[in-house]
């Protein structure tokens, strides 16, 4: 775990020296399970900054909500760093107006897995190198971190920030992409009926609250396709066609833009699995185009580029 005091002192320095106007990080929530995204604008406020495995949001989602000309400091893990890069590629922010404080990330703890195991009366949560220690009203529990990490984190191959301005903490070992590939290949190996059945089972639990959209850094359209009146792209209601339409098109809009941070799944109030869809698109991007999202701040995603020597004509 990175030293929280080192993060704080860096955040303070950035504000004090006027490097940035706001530092986007986390603060304690009302319960230990839910730290909140926070926006620090003065040195005094920074004492309230926290960072731990339960910080479940992708902070890059706030980048497009802050005025474009503001100088922003942001705590970034591997996935957040890549999301920020992808946003820079899409001209949503200038790299010059950003200061990225990198945190090597071991993984994000899924609070639901804690509640499933120990109930809700959680008084405190702490972490050491291997374990998460949870104090509840009934006693103390400890679990191996791997048991509580979110699925996206278990298959993550970019835990270390790749282009941060400063890194706080020791780098963590990276894993290769085999695991992510295996997840996709396992899904692909199912019969088409099976695949459709599991897609239906997940998508049709949807209540169309769009928490997945709002939690995603890459969903920054002023008007989402589901909100269009003319033309209408999907059924509006909680009907099979409407819910499937939302999930499939949401995923497709992420092609070459998704970092598999898993923020969509963690935000979902209905525990809908959806990263398997975007992970499949990421897989295709890797295999077919040798492309991964957000590895630099110049390369356009394959589906956003047009060149004169394209083999196929551009069609919609």
């Amino acid at each position, binding site marked *: 775990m990175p030293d929280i005091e080192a993060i704080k002192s860096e955040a303070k320095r950035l504000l004090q020296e006027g490097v940035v106007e706001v530092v986007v990080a986390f603060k304690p*929530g*009302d*319960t230990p*399970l*839910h*730290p*909140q*995204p*926070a*926006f620090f604008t003065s040195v005094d406020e920074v004492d309230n900054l926290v960072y731990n495995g339960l910080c*479940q*949001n992708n902070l890059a*989602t*706030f980048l497009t909500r802050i005025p474009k000309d503001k100088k922003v400091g942001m705590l970034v893990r591997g996935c957040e760093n890549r999301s920020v890069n992808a946003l820079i590629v899409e001209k949503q922010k200038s790299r010059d107006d950003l200061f990225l404080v990198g945190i090597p990330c071991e993984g994000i703890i899924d609070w*639901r897995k804690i*509640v*499933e195991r120990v*109930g*809700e*009366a*959680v008084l405190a949560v702490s972490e050491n190198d291997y374990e998460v220690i949870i104090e509840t009203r009934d006693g103390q529990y400890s679990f191996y971190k791997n048991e509580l990490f979110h699925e996206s984190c278990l298959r993550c191959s970019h835990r270390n920030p790749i282009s941060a301005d400063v890194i706080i903490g020791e780098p963590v070992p990276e894993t290769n992409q085999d695991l992510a590939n295996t997840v996709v290949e396992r899904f692909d190996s199912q019969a088409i009926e099976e695949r459709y059945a599991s897609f239906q089972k997940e998508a049709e*639990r949807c*209540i*169309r*609250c*769009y*928490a997945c*959209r*709002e*939690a995603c850094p890459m969903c920054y359209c002023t008007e989402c396709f589901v*909100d269009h009146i003319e033309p209408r792209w999907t*059924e*509006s*209601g*909680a*009907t099979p066609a*409407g819910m499937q339409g939302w999930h499939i098109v949401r995923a497709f809009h992420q092609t070459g833009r998704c970092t598999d941070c898993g923020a969509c799944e*963690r*935000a979902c*109030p*209905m*525990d809908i699995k959806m990263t398997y869809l975007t992970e499949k698109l990421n897989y295709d991007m890797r295999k077919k185009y040798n492309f991964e999202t957000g590895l630099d701040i110049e390369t356009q995603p394959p589906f956003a580029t047009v060149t004169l020597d394209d083999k196929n004509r551009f069609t919609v």
Partner: protein
Amino acid sequence: MRKETIMNLILEKQALPALFQSWREHYDVYLPQKMERFSHFMPLSDESVLVTDEPHNTRIPPKALFLPMTEALVEFTRFGSYEDAKQTIQPRIVFAIRPCDAQAVQLLDTSFIQEGYVDPFWVEKRAKTITIGLGCHEPCQTGFCTTVGYGPFNKSDLDVLLTDLGDLYLVETISEAGEKCFQGFPTASDEIYEQALMVQHDTHDQMPVAFETENLKEKLEQNFNSDYWEEISQSCLGCGVCTFLCPTCFCFDIVDEAQRKERVRNWDTCMFRTYSLEASGHNPRPSRVERTRQRLSHKYVYWLDQINQIGCTGCGRCVRYCPVGLDIRAMLRQAQTLPFEVSHAG
């Protein structure tokens, strides 16, 4: 909010399956059952397993049984003509509804059943539903029903209230319809009844005060233009989790689904940009600041103006499932620190 009970009976837990089967002959029976990693009110089937041991409420509030996420209002028959959508609601029993959720349905009545406007879809479902409540002897961590004037064994709008006493329930029948569901069950001894009352009182007393409600309405009203709203909405994502999972949120949007030949109403939420977006392009609630203010003010100011009751039953879902950990209890505690002047008007 205490109501007199008609009878106090005993229901052995092991008698539940047989009881459910006997109800099934005359009613559609809805029980909280396991759905993925949470519980959800679903119709009783042969495979049904009742889930009441979660440390909290069902994920989707049972308001959905009365105001479905999507509901057809009108069916278009041919070009230019239409008829009211047909509802086919059988008489039904909702078993193990929690008091906060039943209370919420009662609050919603004041919106759907008003002088001059009675919603036929709502009314029919309400009239055909018997609600059997299960009190919360282990209140959830995020709930705050006692703070907003209700309680874990609140009887409002229930036909029956059950109190869990280990191997059995104390059954307090509140309405005649409720009593009919438990015909022939043995009367509870004074000892059992006293034991249940003790559980009810103890649980009620254990629940902490989440925030003070005194003068809260005035503070929120008088600080309409305060920076407070910006502070509390800064990290809000603008999704619909808090409102869709709220048992008292009832806003809907009416849409013509031409391909389905239906006019439907869908759940809608004041937290969405499109909710208040006008045809001209103007949006009177242009950012999450105004939308957050609307959500809190509706529950803690406008409901009070309209029916003199807080429009929140303290179920705690918005706290539990907010993707950024926003907590209405903390927001309202902070609101209590805002300046205000005692109003002498009226």
